[in-house]
């Protein structure tokens, strides 16, 4: 198993895209913190990077990589190796290389410039977002053999979670503004890993504004240590569930 993971990682590194991704993240993060005079603005810019760029790159690259390694997978399957193992190794390899480049590219400047708790939470969130969107790429690539279709699904997923979902929530908010829907909002936000991560960081960045009435309800849900753990558990579920579904699909698939 280790050898397959090692092979996958080396293969991705040889691709140089991940190195480029690391470089871009690093240039972005360091410049963002050095250009702004207060670190809050730097954190906010990085927040957008984590919530938009990181998922986009993870989902698209992973998806393409999976399609490109179709032959490699077929070759592996001719060996006495379980399908679960191959799929799992591919996942671990991809997640590991993207997490590594995120931590090196964006994590280091966060630890240097951001307050420690905010920085740590942002790194953790970034790691989870990476893993979740790699898992979603697995899911979209297992559904169809057509490469264009698969990548299309991946991009749609990204678009949905990064943009459309918020638009829908905003719409709902205005439609039901006469009702007490604070708690419903909390539940809704759990349906989108990007939203969930954003709110978690919001609780640390805009703590003063979050102390108002509705803010207090959210704070009650998201601000305590228990809630932070719950959020991370949900994020973990967001990683595991799509991957498991793709795994089941992959096992039954006729190659």
């Amino acid at each position, binding site marked *: 198993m280790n050898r397959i993971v090692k092979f996958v990682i080396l293969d991705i590194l040889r691709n140089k895209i991940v190195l480029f991704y690391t470089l871009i993240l690093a240039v972005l993060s360091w410049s963002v913190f050095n250009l702004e005079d207060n670190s809050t*603005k730097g954190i906010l810019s990085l927040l*957008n990077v984590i919530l938009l760029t990181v998922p986009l790159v993870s989902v698209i690259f992973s998806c393409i990589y999976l399609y490109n390694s179709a032959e490699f997978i077929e070759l592996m399957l001719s060996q006495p190796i379980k399908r679960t193992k191959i799929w799992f190794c591919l996942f671990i390899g991809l997640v590991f290389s993207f997490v590594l480049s995120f931590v090196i590219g964006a994590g280091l400047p966060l630890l240097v410039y951001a307050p420690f708790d905010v920085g740590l939470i942002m790194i953790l969130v970034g790691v989870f977002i990476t893993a979740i969107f790699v898992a979603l790429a697995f899911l979209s690539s297992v559904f169809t053999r057509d490469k264009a279709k698969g990548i299309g699904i991946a991009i749609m997923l990204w678009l949905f979670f990064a943009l459309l979902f*918020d*638009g829908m929530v905003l719409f709902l908010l205005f439609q039901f*503004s006469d009702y007490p829907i604070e708690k419903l909002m909390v539940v809704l936000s759990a349906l989108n890993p990007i939203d969930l991560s954003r709110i978690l960081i919001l609780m640390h960045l805009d703590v*003063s*504004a*979050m102390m*108002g009435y509705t803010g207090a309800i959210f704070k009650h849900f998201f601000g305590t240590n228990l809630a932070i753990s719950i959020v991370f558990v949900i994020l973990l579920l967001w990683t595991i569930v799509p991957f498991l579904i793709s795994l089941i699909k992959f096992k039954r698939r006729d190659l």
Partner: protein
Amino acid sequence: MMSRILIAIFLLSTASFFAEKIHVGKHHKIKCIKTALTHCKNGDSIIVEAGIYQEGNLVIDHSISLIGENLPVLDGQKKFEVLSIKACNVLVKGFKIQHSGFATLNDPCGIKVYDSQHVTIIQNVLDDNFFGIYLQYCKKCLIKDNRIVAYGEAEQQIGNGIHCWKSDSLVIEGNEVSGHRDGIYFEFVTNSVIWRNRSAKNIRYGLHFMFSNNDAYISNVFKNNGAGVAVMFTQKVKMFNNRFEENWGDAAYGLMLKEISDSYIVGNTFKRNTTGIYMEGTNRIKLEKNTFELNGWAMKIQASCMDNEITANNFLSNTFDVSTNGSLVLNSFNANYWDKYEGYDLNKDAIGDVPYHPLSLFSVIVEKNPPAMLLFRSFMVSLLDKSEKIIPSLTPDNFIDHLPLMKALNL
């Protein structure tokens, strides 16, 4: 004229000549303060040595000095008002006054001053009283360097730290108040100064100010109070160099202004409040050289405010700089520094060439629909905000700073 002065000097010298020092304590002839108070005459000094004195209600009705040595304790046993001052020219210094009674009808206090002038209360410790120091119908009194602590849990179960009612020319200086309902309470108090006090962790307001004209409060710290500081129904108040910090909650404001006019708010710092300043029905106020830092909302200006000038302030790292509830804008914002300003300065005069709209679309949305706060900082919302900045459609387009500064003021 000369003869009058001579007579005055003569009277004063005779007064001090006949004035006695009465010592009270275990080691003296007079054991209890009550006896000393009944035997004293105007101008005497009663010097109390350390110990615990449980003598019920002590009434001072002569012009005397009551001085404690090594912090003697006056205990009200949770039944009595501890010290009642009903004479002019009284000095109370160096006591620990504790456990006054609790009653909502006659408001028993640690120290209560009735209808008097020139009363000085300094360097006392007031611990666990219903009201701390209470002044009614007083003039020219000095309350200085007292430490007032209580342990109230609910608003209706505890009185105010320093409560002033229908008074004039008071000086409240260097006191520390915590755990009361309102730290300092002013109602119908005029021409007074509140200076260098620290009011923290009170249940309701750090400072509560009603119908009190021509007062100034300077260099005070109001921190972590239930609802911050409230200034209501007042004219001509001067608020200089105060700090308003960590007043957190939905109805908590660093400074709440309601029906205020012709006042000055200069050089204050508002830090980490849910709302820095909340203004309602506020007219002709000058807000200058204040710093708003790390607040949820730096200012909430309701549409009922008129002719306020907001000039030369720093707005730093606030979640929202300004919010309002209507489309009517009758106030002027000029030459402030906004850290969210993204304009440029081609002619290098330190003033941005593009006017700044401090009111973001999302702050208007949140004002109408608070749960929307959950979408804050999402890409969708940033997009809406950006487009609104370029073409204002929902926010009032005259809500504008024409001369935004490029660099923060050094305040």
